[in-house]
């Protein structure tokens, strides 16, 4: 199967989502605005969805539909799903994770399922604490680590740590929080801008 690249923005938001709700399982969708050739997937953004009752249908369906609509308005598509389990020592996909990932792969062949490994999260990770799965013969199998790319991992990690330290993760809005207060923006434009600022060459990053 093809390569997958995870952008800084997607990784940081996913990471901050997991840090914002350390006691809950969290999940979200992985999006792509690019279509590189040769079956490679470039995850350029993510939408954090839930931090409660991940396996209940109505809100998940609602979120999938709304994100779908937003994607078609913004030339993006849903290419995957991420989840972090409440129990940090267990990073295996739950049945609901598999179900949602299955649904996504109906629309997109090279869909990925990403599990955040809570037990491995730390400020000095040499590698990102994630485990990826891809679909083969209607089963989800572990993806070869060498096909997973995170450009400039050290910068990405530094940005994530910086935002965590300065409390920026509290700015993150997931779909659950949006339903509690619909004036909050689940597309997280504010946070995206902050990440862009921190990643820009003016800050000494390449």
């Amino acid at each position, binding site marked *: 199967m093809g390569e997958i690249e995870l952008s800084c923005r997607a990784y940081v938001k996913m990471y901050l989502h997991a840090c914002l709700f350390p006691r809950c399982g969290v999940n979200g969708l992985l999006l792509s605005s690019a279509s590189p050739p040769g079956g490679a997937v470039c995850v350029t953004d993510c939408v954090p969805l839930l931090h409660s009752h991940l396996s*209940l*249908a*109505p809100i998940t369906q609602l979120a999938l539909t709304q994100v779908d609509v937003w994607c078609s308005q913004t030339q993006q598509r849903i290419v995957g799903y991420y989840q972090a389990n409440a129990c940090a020592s267990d990073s295996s996909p739950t049945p609901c994770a598999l179900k949602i990932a299955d649904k996504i792969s109906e629309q997109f062949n090279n869909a990925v399922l990403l599990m955040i490994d809570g037990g491995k999260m730390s400020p000095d990770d040499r590698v990102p604490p994630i485990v990826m799965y891809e679909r083969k013969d209607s089963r989800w199998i572990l993806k070869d680590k060498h096909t997973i790319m995170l450009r400039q991992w050290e910068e990405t990690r530094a940005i994530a740590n910086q935002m965590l330290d300065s409390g920026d993760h509290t700015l993150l809005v997931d779909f659950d929080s949006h339903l509690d207060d*619909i004036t909050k*923006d689940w597309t997280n434009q504010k946070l995206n801008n902050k990440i862009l600022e921190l990643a820009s060459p003016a800050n000494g990053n390449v």
Partner: protein
Amino acid sequence: MASVSELYDVGWEEMRDKLRKWREDNCRNSEQIVDVGEELISDHGSKLGDDVWIIYEQVMIAALDCSRDDLAITCLQELKKQFPDSHRVKRLSGMRLEALERYDEANKYYEAILQDDPTNTAARKRKISILKAQGKTTEAVRELNEYLEQFVGDQEAWHELSELYINEHDYGKAAFCLEELMMTNPHNHLYCEQYAEVKYTQGGLENLELSRKYFAQALRLNNRNMRALFGLYMSASHIAASPKVGAKVKKDNIKYAGWAANQINRAYKLAGRGTKENKCSMKAVEEMLDSMQITMS
């Protein structure tokens, strides 16, 4: 680093009152509790009178949540000095061991408490929490069921059990727990809405109709519950689109869905005023409602 009192321009009484409010509302905003509580204890401990002990307990638990073992130990030592034989303090010692993942030692503490006092509910619940933390969900469920046979009025336990069942995808049993909660808390819109979500997830026409009814009930209890509003919209739409329903049921459900769609649109228009921020989500909702109207008619 600026102190809490400097940052927020508050005196020690306000800090103490804030902590009390958080205790009463059972908030788990542990980082804030640690910030406020640590400063209150160290700078104004002598002014707190007897309140200081319950504040030590509150801050200790919050400290465990934030991996501040240093602060937790300080609080625990003060409490041990003041209440040397207390079961309540023993439980806190156990909780500290749990935070350090020394579960077997923690269990010994709780078993000692239960030997002394078999009705000590706090110790039993901690033992169940350990099972949950270790991922032993089946045992946790079994123990919690046994607990509820004895302490059938414990709302917190019923809710915890419903959460465990939902995580295990055992929706029938989750629904049963929520039914218990709705019976004893008929005005709680959250239980109605959660029950409706479980029924929706179970699927099938009968469950969808039940889910629609309970989403509607949740809205009657709190007309700002957006989940219930969306839930009503979706359940009514699915019923209307089902080939198994008669013309009248279809018509009624289209009406309910239409009403819900209007309410949703109104809510989003109201929310969208003056803020550029959520224009994206607003547009997404509008389009979604439009497209679902088309598939229904």
